[in-house]
């Protein structure tokens, strides 16, 4: 187990290195300057700007300068937002996205497991079919379609939730909901499938024979085992929530890292783009590691029973 952790952390370093290099090189090789503006900039000024940002000279030189800074924890300065360092930007926007993502994930887990268990219990009946249809619907409708419709319905017509923005507790509910739906759907499917199999196993029959109430059988024993695939799914789920949050944050005007990433890619801001890719990848690697450890732990305990 320790070996797993160590191995993963060690192999993370070259991976992050490659990813950041790839991003930086791509963005710098693209035809378009990060300093482009509608009014033509005099050459002297352009030179000065490039000098200031260490974006002058051969590509290898720029890259080396950047990596040197990164190695010292300095992600350089944004070429779009001229007085902000990338560290500062990420420090302000990442917690916002993490809050949103964490809430969305919890919602997805809660709703997904509950609905999946419900469907498994009503297996073969209409309830099962309806819930699974709803789940598939949740996966088949893109979030940028669902979100405006929900905003229109819940926020504008009914007026029970705010339309957009960030800062008060009620402003987090609708975006987290929209973000969580496809993942709730997938978790529901996984839970249902897994639970169906588990419910056939011997130890469940034993628990029933012992006279335990159905509720206890389900939640005390069966679910603990059935949850394994859901834990296994948390890695890809985190990646999905990360990408999904880009759309949601744009639609709800949330000051997170997502829309900012697309903007910086479009504006060929090499530092912000590389910085965000670094952060995203590190986060996912760590999250995947935690998920794998959890899976390992749960799996072992399940086997022991």
């Amino acid at each position: 187990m320790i070996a797993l952790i160590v191995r993963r952390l060690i192999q993370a370093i070259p991976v992050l290195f490659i990813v950041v290099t790839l991003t930086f090189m791509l963005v710098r090789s693209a035809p378009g300057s990060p300093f482009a503006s509608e009014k033509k900039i005099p050459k002297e000024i352009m030179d000065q700007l490039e000098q200031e940002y260490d974006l002058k000279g051969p590509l290898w030189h720029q890259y080396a300068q950047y990596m040197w800074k990164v190695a010292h924890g300095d992600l350089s300065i944004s070429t779009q937002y001229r007085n902000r360092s990338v560290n500062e930007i990420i420090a302000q926007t990442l917690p916002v996205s993490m809050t949103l993502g964490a809430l969305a994930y919890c919602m997805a887990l809660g709703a997904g497991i509950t609905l999946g268990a419900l469907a498994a219990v009503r297996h073969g009946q209409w309830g099962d079919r309806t819930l699974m249809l709803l789940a598939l619907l949740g996966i088949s409708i893109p979030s940028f379609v669902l979100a405006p419709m929900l905003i229109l319905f819940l926020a504008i017509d009914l007026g029970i939730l705010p339309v957009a923005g960030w800062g008060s507790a009620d402003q987090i509910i609708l975006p987290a909901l929209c973000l969580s739906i496809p993942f709730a759907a997938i978790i529901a499917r996984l839970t249902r499938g897994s639970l169906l199999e588990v419910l056939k196993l011997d130890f469940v029959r034993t628990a029933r024979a012992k006279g335990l109430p159905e509720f206890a059988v389900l939640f005390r024993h069966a679910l603990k085992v059935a949850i394994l695939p859901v834990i296994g799914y948390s890695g890809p789920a985190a990646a999905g929530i990360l990408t999904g949050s880009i759309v949601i944050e744009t639609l709800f005007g949330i000051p997170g890292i997502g829309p900012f990433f697309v903007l910086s890619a479009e504006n060929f801001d090499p530092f912000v783009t590389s910085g965000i890719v670094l952060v995203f990848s590190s986060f996912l690697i760590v999250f995947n590691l935690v998920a794998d450890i959890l899976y390992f732990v749960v799996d072992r305990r399940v086997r022991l029973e």
Partner: protein
Amino acid sequence: MPPTTGPFPISRPWKRWAVAAGLVAGFLAFFWLFGGWSLAPQVDLTLSNGDEPQTLDPAMATAQLDGRIILALFEGLTTRAADGSIVGGMAESWEMSPDGLTYTFHLRPGIKWSNGDPVTAQDFVDSWERTLNPATASEYSYQLYYLRNGEAYGTGKITDFSQVGVKAPDAQTLVCTLAHPTAFFLELTSFQTLCPVHMPTIKKYGRDWTKPGHMVSNGPYVLKDWRFRNYILVEANPYYWKPVPVHRMKVLPTSNANTTFNLFYSHKTDLILDTRSIPATLVADIKDKPYFHANPFGATTFLRFNVKRKPFDDVRVRTALALALDKHDIVTKITRAGEPIADTFAPPGYKGYTPPQGLGYHPDEARRLLAEAGYPGGKGFPDVNLLYAIRGSGPQQIATEMQALWQRELGITSIHLRGQEFNVYLNTQQLIDYDLSLSAWIGDYNDPQTFLDMFVTDGGNNETGWSDPQYDQLLATSENTVDPAARMKILSDMEKILCVDQVPIVPIYFWVGMALYEPGKIGGFEPNFVDDHRWGNFYIPEKKP
């Protein structure tokens, strides 16, 4: 015996609840501390200004939306009244010499920075030096090239700033000497690039001087808080030379036009200032609503030809495409805000300016010209690309329409659309690596020259490869003409060469500046041609004594 096995090593139920409660509390704490949760500050007015500003440094700003905030925090020698006219700002009076080359400004007595320091003429000299200095890398420094030796200093040819035409003989007087008569100089002095900055603050904080708490400014407002992509809070400056009616304002950035409108519709924002933040397809539906306000705006959307590439090196082909473009179709179907069609480049509305008659819409004549050029019925027309920037859905819709219109009128089927990310598009255009390009230009100041001086030979913003010595000569003559009427006539002649004779560009429509606000909720906001509404002029009607 309570179960001790299971994946969750917590055996007693109450412990589980405790853990759960702990997690929730931790979550809330995280949200509070880092997630940007705030008890909403009480404000008098909430504005939507468009996207997050790139910078609040007057010397560095290039975007109109940055400029709006900066002009609330800083003030130059002159400023604008609500109707757009130039009035005194830091300067209360001024004189211009008869040859138009020297301006003497008399600063208002008692003007101060927001930390109590007095604003002096030397502040202007130092600030302008900073802006012109190549080391500052100010993209708009060319606005100071109108000063004598301004360009030489700005390009590094001379390094002694005392040779540049701005002097402060005493603390209350500023004397500007220009390179040649500049009719719109007073407009420039109201622009953000020529605003003074507080040099001691910059020396102390360097790049961080624009952060709230560090910034010292001289305008109607001071920067109270700046949460990245969340909101900006400004408060009335107690040291400003006249009372500021609206005490506290919040500025919300949004990148999505629909979200901005939703905020307005649900009364979360009081004023949408940025024309681009109003979704185009919505405009037709809200045009008659009381909260919709539109005014003519000095900006033009136009088409550029690459005159160095076939077939656009032939003036007949260019003229044919110009004559066959049904601009009426574009403004009624696509842009829908009642934009006026443009047959000339500089928007009408500049005082004393009469544009010449443009080409107009004559499809028969167009077809004739195209046949004469060797492409009857559009046959044999080479493959060309119509370049546009991906910026919202507007340019794409317009380009799609133009392509289809030319196909319908001239029978040309070989025009392909080429959309590029804004930065890539700018680069492609600057390299003149296109065939046709859908472009736009917003005037910097209230004079047609801001449009017409683009197309001189090798002009930095020309980007068509077009060159006409007569055009260049006319511009030089106009710059040395002091009589306003004569000068306007020369500019009109230039337009004739540009839009009728040579046609390196085809103007399409003039913009309409739009704003959304409930009438009676905000005062001091009037339609003006430069779409420049200074926040210091705002007041809330029911609160006005």
